[in-house]
Structures are given as C-alpha cells and as structure tokens.
C-alpha cells in the first residue's frame, strides 16, 4: 500500500497539452476514480503514473520514492504497481495459471510458494478450477477476473484500472462493480480507477477527480461533487447540471444565500466564502425544478420538447427571460405538454458556483459546455 502524489504533472504532444499541471494526492488505501470524457487526458495520466511515458514537467511520487520527474524516470517494470487493462491484455499463449504466475516468476518466486499464491489469487476472484484454461476459452467477465488476479498476485502497492468495465455488457458491469468494491475493502490496496462513466465512478470511489482538456477540475467525494460542483464544466458534466446566470443578493452564515434568478428570489446553498455578487452562476439539478401553477412564484418558460422515459417525461423548456437558456426536469405521468406550451417553473434549491474571481463581467458560454448534451450554460445574449 502506498500513497500516490501527482505533483503539477505536465505532458505535451507537440503543441497539444495533454496534461496541464495536474496535481492529485491519493492517500494510502484510497479508491480514487479519475473521471472525464474521452480525450480529456485521463489515460495519459495513467500512463504517466505507470511509467510508460516520460513527463515534461512536475513529478510523481509512489510511497516514498520519486518515480517520475523531468530528470529521472523509473521504468514501469521497477515501479511495483499493478494494472488492469481495458483490453485485459491476457497473454493468449499462456494458461490462466501461467498468466497469473508470470509476475511471481519474474520476481524469482518459485514453487511451491508460487503455486500457493496463484491458487490463492484465483480463489480470491472465484476462478478456482479454471487454472488450466486458455484465456480464449473464458467469458468477458472471467477474463476480467483473471486480469485482476494477475495484477494482485504480486501484492502491488498501487493498482491502476483503465476503464476495466468498458468492454463488458450492462448486466456484467453491475456485478463486477460490486466485485471491485468488495475487493478493495478486502485488500485495502490503493486504487486509481480510470473511467468515463460517472455512475461507475460514483458507485465505487471514495473520491472522484474530474478531468477535462488535460486539466484537473475538481477532486471531491461523489456526493460533494454532485451537490457542490466547483465550476460550470463539472456542474454540467456530473448529473447533467443546468448552469444559469444568477445574482447573489445576500449571504447568511449557514452556507445559504439569497439569489435573484431572472427576477425570482431563490434560497440556495453556497460556499462559506461566498460574497454577494452581481454576476454569478448557479447550478440547478432537474430535481430542484418543478412546474407550478400560474399564480405561484416562478419563471415563465416555453416547452421545447417532452420525451417519455418510462414513468415520467423529461421536459426541456426555454426560459422566456433570457433566450438561449434551456432547462430540463422530470414530469410525472400523465403529462400533456406539447412543444410551445407555456409553463411556469418553480425552483426550490440550487448551488452557487464558487467561481470567485473567475468570472466578473462575462458569463459567455464556453464552447465545450454548449456542445455537451444537457450542459447548457447561462448566456446573456
């Protein structure tokens, strides 16, 4: 077991900054998920930690030792870590037992010690009796478990998992998720789990690091990430948050504030350091929104489309006050909302994005946000 410190790591490919001063501190025994859309740099980061590539700035520390810096590079074979690859990377010319035993053989462990440990590793992933099979004779889930056993048999201090569930079907994913969880609890190994699937990350991780465009946006527990996103990108990416322009009118001491949202006064959560601000942004969740009667207080909007999603409709609407701002919410059956119908939306809670100092006058949508489905940033015009 070991602590992993990634300290201002930078990696460039030509003019492209794949990693831009990424810092991450994974404590001993922690399950850390690195979450981001494809191309965000998460796999590049994993390859840096594993040592497959050399970095261009910063350093990486595993346990007590600096393994990567600009001046030194410990090769992967000396890092004593484990990896579960997305493709599993099982050697097709070896049996299951030979695959698992490989790391031990390389380390000079001989029978009967080696056989005992292979047996134990296979038992741990419930694959006893499969030792003599070839990987090609196993199902996807079994291959995954062989890969896991192979990576853990040498008791590495740190295990990296590179989208290990991406190649499995939906049913198998749920059971493998559970398996990873149990596994982590039993071994207490430090784990870094790369994924683009936020449900997976939320279900498994102690903490989640959200990456985008080579930068680390936020590191937080799953609940904190959902409830208190650090900026508009995280808010939009995690749980399809709706980001809207807002004015923070006044702040009380209990982490709540009063916000003016298109003329509607709403009580919202905010960071303790939040100050009143004329131009702030707030993150709303679909669950915070509801259709209210014409006489109640709310924001007028026009329905853009209603999509049936089994038991409820996902209703997307455009606010009348500021064109371009799209919101979405769940509306229970029965619901007769044709596109174009006028509705009034009530809002009971939200989160003021703690972007102090970042935005002052301009809240123009970032191009990356507007392209993401559901990630609709506020716009003044």
């Amino acid at each position, binding site marked *: 077991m070991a602590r992993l410190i990634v300290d201002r790591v930078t990696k460039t490919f030509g003019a492209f900054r794949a990693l831009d001063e990424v810092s991450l501190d994974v404590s001993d025994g922690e399950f850390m998920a690195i979450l981001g859309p494809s191309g965000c740099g998460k796999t590049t980061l994993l390859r840096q930690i594993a040592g497959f590539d050399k970095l261009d700035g910063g350093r990486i520390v595993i346990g007590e030792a600096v393994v990567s810096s600009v001046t030194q590079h410990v090769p992967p074979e000396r890092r004593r870590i484990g990896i579960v690859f997305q493709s599993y990377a099982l050697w097709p010319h070896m049996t299951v037992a030979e695959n698992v035993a490989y790391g031990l053989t*390389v380390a000079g462990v001989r029978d009967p010690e080696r056989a005992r440990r292979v047996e134990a590793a296979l038992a741990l992933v419930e694959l006893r009796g499969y030792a003599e099979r070839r990987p090609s004779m196993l199902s996807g889930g079994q291959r995954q478990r062989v890969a896991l056993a192979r990576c853990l048999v040498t008791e590495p201090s740190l295990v990296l998992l590179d989208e290990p569930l991406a190649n499995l079907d939906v049913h198998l994913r749920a059971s493998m998720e559970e398996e990873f969880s149990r596994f982590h609890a039993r071994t207490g190994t430090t784990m870094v789990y790369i994924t683009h699937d936020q449900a997976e990350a939320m279900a498994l991780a102690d903490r989640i690091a959200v990456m985008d465009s080579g930068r680390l946006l936020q590191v937080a527990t799953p609940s904190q990430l959902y409830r208190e996103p650090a900026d508009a990108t995280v808010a939009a990416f995690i749980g399809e948050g709706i980001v809207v322009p807002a004015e923070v009118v006044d702040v009380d001491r209990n982490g709540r504030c009063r916000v003016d949202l298109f003329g509607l006064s709403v009580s919202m959560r905010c960071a303790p350091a939040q100050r009143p601000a004329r131009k702030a942004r707030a993150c709303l969740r679909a669950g915070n929104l509801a259709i209210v009667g014409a006489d109640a207080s709310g924001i007028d909007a026009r329905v853009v489309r209603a999509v049936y999603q089994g038991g409820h409709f996902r209703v997307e609407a455009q606010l009348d006050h500021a064109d371009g701002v799209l919101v979405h919410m769940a509306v229970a059956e029965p619901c007769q909302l044709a596109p174009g119908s006028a509705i009034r939306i009530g809002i009971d809670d939200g989160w003021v994005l703690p972007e102090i100092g970042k935005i002052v006058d301009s809240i123009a949508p970032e191009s990356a946000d507007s392209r993401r489905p559901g990630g609709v940033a506020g716009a003044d015009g």
Partner: protein
Amino acid sequence: MADTAGWRERAEETALLWVLVAIVAILSLLPLARLLFEGVAPGGRFSTAALSSVLSSATTWTAAQHSLVTACGGTALAVLIGATVAVLVGLTDIRGRNAFVFCFVLPLMIAPQVVALAWLQLFGPSSTLLKMIGLAPAMGSRNPLYSAEGIVLLLGVQYAPLVFLTLRAGLRTLPQELLEAGLAAGAKPLTILRTIILPLMTPPLVAGIALCFVSCLGNFGIPAFLGIPGNYLVLPTLIYQRLAGLGPSVLSEVAVLSCLIGFIAVLGIFLQDLMLRRRDFRITTTSNAMRPFELARWRPAVEIALWILTIVVLVLPLVALLLSSLVPAAGVPLTVKSATWSNYDYVLFDHAAAKRAFINSFSLSATAAIVIVLVAVPLAYFLVWRRSRLLRVLNLVAEMPYALPGVVLAIAAILVFLKPLPVFGLTLYNTVWIILFGYLARFLVLGLRPVIGGYYQLDRTLEEAAQIAGARLLRRLATIILPLVAPMATAGALLVFLTAFNELTVSALLWSSGAETLGVVVFSFQQGGDSTYAAALAMLTVAVTIALMLSTLLTGKPARGVLPWRG
C-alpha cells in the same frame, strides 16, 4: 536509490539497440558504401580511370541496352499476364481459386535458373518431350529460346506473379461499397472495372510494375542460361563473365558496372516509392470481403483459359525438365526401356560437388533463416513500438540490398571481404561464410517485413502488462513477444529459406571450391553440357520447394497475406 533506479533496464535496452544498429549497418550500409567508394576511388586511390574506361566501352552500353530491353519487355509481359489474372482471380467467381493461386505463384518460388532450364528442355532439338511426340526440330538447329525474345518470355512468366500479388493485395482493400455504388448508378461490371476499379488500382499496379522491373533487371539465372550461349549479354551476366574470366583484378571495373545497374534499379525503386507514399499498404483486417462478379455462362471458358495458362507456363516446362532428367544422355529418346534414375543417383551420391551443394545450400539457407528471424524480432520491436528514429533510417538502408540487383550486393561483399578482416585476421573470401553474409544482407528484409506486419496486428498492452509485472526487455521478448509473433516469424523464416535455397545470383559470384550451392552446381552442369544432370538436380530443388510450400498449407495457423502462395 531513486537515482540508480532503472539503470540496468536502460543499459540493457541501449545495448540491445546498439547491437541491432551495428548488425543492420554491417549488413547493408557497409557493403554499399564500400562499393560506391570503389566506384570513385579504385584500390583506395581517387581515380576516374576505371570509371571512364568502363563508361567509354561499347560492351558496357550494349549490355546496358540489352538489360533495359529485356527488363522492359519482361515487365510488359508480366504486367499483361499478372494483371489479367489478378482481375479474374480477385474479382470474379471462378472455382478452385486457391489451387490456381498456388500453381500460378509457383514460378516465383522456383529458382530462375531452374525455370530457364525447364523451358530449354521444352523447346530445342534435344527436347525429350518434343521427341516423344515427334515434334522436335532437326538436330543442330538453334533453340529459339537462346535470344532476347526468349529472355523476355521467361522473365515475363517468372515475374507475372509479382504483379499479380501486388495487384491482388490492392484489390483486397477495395471497399465493396464503391462497387455497389457504381452498380446502383446503373454501370455494367465492365464499366465499373474500367472507371472505378482500375483507376483506384493505379498505385499498386505501378508499385508492382516497378518491383517487376527491378527484379527483371537484376535477374541472373535466366539471361545466364539463355543469353550467354548466344552471346547476348546483359549487365549481370557481363559482370559475371568479367569476374569469372579475369578474377579479382577487374574488381574496380565490375564495381563501376554494379553501380551502373544499381543506378538504373534505384530509378525504378524511386518510382515505386513515389507511388507508395500516397498509400498505406499495411494489412487492414477490417476490409470486407468483396462479393465476386458473376461470370455466369463465361465461367467455364475463363476457368479453362486460366488452367491452360497454368499448364503452359508451369506444367509443360516442369514435365519437360522431369523427362530430361530421366534419359541416360541428352538427345537420347525417352522410352520405357531407356528411362533411368542414374542421373539422380549421380547427383545425389557420386558427384562430390553436388553432394556438398546439398549440404551447403540446406545449412546456408537454414542458418540465414534462423539468424534473420532472431534479428528481425527485436529489430521490428524497436521499429514499430519504440519508433526509434535511428533504426527507421537504417530500415530504409536495410531494404537496399534486397531491392538492388543481387550482383550489386555480391560485388560489394567481395570488396569488403577480399582482404583479411582487420583485428581478427580472418579471410572470409573464398569460404562459405561470405555466401552466408550475402544471404543475411540480401534477405534480411524478406524476414523482417512479415514480423513488422505481426507487430502492427498485436495489442501492445500485452507487452505493457508484462512490463508492469516486472519483466525486463529481454525477458519480455523471450516469453511474451516471441511467442506472439511466432506465426509471422515462421512465415518470414520460410520465405528466407526458400529464396536462399533457390538462389543463384549471389552465390554465382561468391562461391568457391568446397563452397558450392545448388544453383551454382546446376549452372555449371548446364554450362558443361551435362543437361541431364542439371535437370535431375533442378527437379530435386523443385521437389523440396513444392514440398515445403505444401507443408504450410497443412500445418500451423494461417498468417494471411504473408506467404504469397496462400490464397
């Protein structure tokens, strides 16, 4: 501790890399550089005497002209046959495709001198076959193949499979949708062939033409068997005659001749490179199998035509060769009574040089195949996965000894090894080792290409997983990578073995007494007028070649697109 971590790994990788760089440099860079040096500075002193005397000699230009005429003619014939067959086999629904491809590609794998010998036995006044059916020309008349036309005909037959193979590889990558779009637009199959397929196939076709031209230019066996008797000399046979007649004293002169033929070949390669640059010829596994065009009522006629072609270019010459190997002496008619195995007895058990040649050719080819594969696996690793820039440059250089005509490399090898090696004091010249050097240099690329293809098809995480498990490079190469590229490496080794086993061009110039190869002995039998012995020995090499090719059809995993005779 942190400062020293990984130094062993780095040292091991650096050492391996430099060993590979040294091997490639010694095999390709050194001989070619030495040859160019000899061209401008014969005997180590700068002089244009050899250069001007060779370039002002009428013989040189006659041979160069003959080389160009036969190479162009041979290429034209090969393209005509190869392209037609590629279109028919690649695009239509003929039956028995695999058997036909095997037979059609066979001449490429058989030694050119054996092909020449077989055709000589087919025509001419002493043809056993023609005698049997009473069609033999009168005794004393000239064999029609002893002519420029004969050389062109045989070059065309020998290298038609080269055009066929490059074009067929191109046809395999042709997306089905493009043809279906043409059909949907109302075009007839022949219109689609003319307006869609052939334009798209221009790059592989031109690449095939260039490859064929360079092969024809460098061919030694065919012009040696057909041209020397009629004193129709091309550059390779001119070089051979000079060197065989006058010995190493004319080295500077033949070095200039080699540079000349090399220069002509480089023009051909340059053309090919120009076309290859526009396309990526790596094997793609995603290409959909194209649905063949239905020939309908024309199908039997086309099939019969293809098999007649096979009989004419393959079966008849080989039958003629077989029959000639069974008569007691050239010119004696073959009857049940006169048929004899004595020629085989003689070359297998009595003739000392022939017996030695079997052992030499077998061990030289096998050694070359094994050494080349052992070099190719780590070399391709650095080329494909590590993208070592230094090796990429060397890889281009490594192509040269194979791309250039064989005589060029042979002369270069003589120049390098004529004097005893410095430091060691060993003389390789006039030993079997200089032939081995020639084979290693010339055929390295043959073994390397399939292995490179193998790496492109491998998932690199298989190696990374072993790296994470703590295995250093040499162990990963031995326990993970070698087993995974083994099918491709085996195919490469087999190609090297068969090519070296049937080779004459390099050993004709490098052999010495005691270090004869099969090609050399067949050649000297024929030159000495012992055509029945030559035929028997040639039949044996054909039998070994066909047996090895057939064995790949029966065993092992198919390494698609590597072995040319597999469909």
